[in-house]
């Protein structure tokens, strides 16, 4: 057991850290971005290559598609695929991970396939999915699920496994039944790991969405990228990538915040 020694001292140290943390977190990456932008601008201007837009051209293309609105409909469509796929994944994967963590028999039965899915690259499954259900929304959803499910399962299972068996025994000694155990001990104990699984899963869902659309299912963002490429509008291709980066960053920071909120309260 960790002892909470010197609470006051810890408090002041933490608040000192917090007051400087805003600037500390933002300044270094911004400085790095500025350096990259300068090198990019100078290098691209020097190269005179139609396939390599300058930094400023990319920025103006970014403004064009965001303000002009070309990005929104494809982005919405792609995100719909991702969200449906992610939600279905979570609905399947969290309960599966929970029972795998608790019941040895089910774990034994499912574990080989779960570990197979972890090591297997998802891309080769694309042609199979298309062969089976074509190019529609459901194909995109299925692809997202292939990318996502296993990571949520693995983390949820690990979360249940990590619950201190002494707490389970304590609950038993006070007469807890299986339902009580899940409600008061197992699920609260596994919640941080489940949140981690969902965060990683959503990142994977995003990757699956983009990859699927680019490689096979020409729709949404993928279709937009292909269209700009066909028109040799490399600045717009870059701008779309920037949009995707922004979204990925927002998703990841939002999920981290959620994950922190689900951590058990501590000193």
């Amino acid at each position, binding site marked *: 057991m960790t002892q*909470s020694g010197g609470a006051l001292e810890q408090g002041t140290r933490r608040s000192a850290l917090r007051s400087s943390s805003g600037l500390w977190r933002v300044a270094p990456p911004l400085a790095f971005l500025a350096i990259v932008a300068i090198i990019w601008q100078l290098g691209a201007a020097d190269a005179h290559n139609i396939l390599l837009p300058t930094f400023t051209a990319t920025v103006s293309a970014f403004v064009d598609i965001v303000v002009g609105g070309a990005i929104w409909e494809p982005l919405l469509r792609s995100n719909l695929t991702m969200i449906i796929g992610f939600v279905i994944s979570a609905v399947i994967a969290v309960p599966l991970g929970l029972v795998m963590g608790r019941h040895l028999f089910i774990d034994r039965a499912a574990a080989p396939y779960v570990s197979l899915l972890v090591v297997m690259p998802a891309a080769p499954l694309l042609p199979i999915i298309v062969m089976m259900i074509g190019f529609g929304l459901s194909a995109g959803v299925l692809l997202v699920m292939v990318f996502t499910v296993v990571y949520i399962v693995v983390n949820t299972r690990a979360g249940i496994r990590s619950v*201190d068996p002494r*707490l389970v025994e304590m609950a038993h*000694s*006070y007469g807890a039944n299986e339902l009580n155990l899940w409600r*008061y001990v197992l699920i609260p104990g596994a919640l941080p790991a489940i949140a981690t699984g969902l965060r990683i899963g959503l990142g994977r869902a995003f990757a699956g969405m983009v990859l699927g659309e680019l490689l096979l299912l020409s729709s949404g963002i993928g279709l937009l990228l292909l269209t700009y490429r066909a028109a040799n509008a490399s600045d717009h291709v870059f701008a779309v990538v920037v949009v995707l980066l922004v979204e990925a960053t927002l998703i990841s920071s939002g999920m981290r915040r959620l994950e922190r909120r689900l951590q*058990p*309260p501590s000193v």
Partner: protein
Amino acid sequence: MITVTGLNKTFASKVGGVPVLRDVSFEVRDNEFVSILGPSGCGKTTLLRILAGLVDHDGGSIQVEGKEVSGPGPDRAVVFQHFSLLPWMSVLDNIGFGLRLRGVPKAMWSKQALQLAQLVGLQGFENFFPRQLSGGMQQRVGLARALAVEPAILLMDEPFAALDEQTRLLMQEELLRITQEAHKTIVFVTHSMEEALLLSDRVLLLTGHPGVVQEYLEVPFDRPRDRSITTSLEFQRLREHLWEQLRRTQTRDAVDSSDVVA
């Protein structure tokens, strides 16, 4: 009244059964404070867990108020060595946990939990979380949680062993005070001779592998007690006696195992 008769327990392991308790018999009277004292590995914690109904026994019988123990029951509550508090629940929710499991409505269990927080000296900390508390305070929560379900029997598994020395002494005095107010039958596992003598009416001395009952010692001090008895001649004499018993069996064990090695 707890009656244990001819209790045997063997743990299964890869190399075969490991006997931990052999032919253990004793009884605990109502409102009596009994310590189970012994060196580590003598099966004292296993014995307590069997009493709690958390572990099955292989032979013999355990009866509480004439009924055979076959699992955890509302007549017994356990205070654990490592506190076993739920980290995601506040002090108040942890204290009320047992009542909540019994379907007591929230208004009632939280009122009772508040009173118990007061009894164990945690007033003002009701909304804290376990990690914000020191070890001693965490064990106060553990004790309050056990008292909350109003068990006839309190089973305490080396409850102060994970605490530092000063906190342990304080908690022993707290326990003396609390048990004076709430009449309970208490079975208290410890490896400390002083702790056993200070707190108990009788000390059950377990020794050896597997554990057998070496002696069931009466501790003749009146209650209410305080730490001043520990300086008395009688206390020193009993302590010396217990030590003599422990030393004899442990040297014997050491000789036994060296024989095995040779």
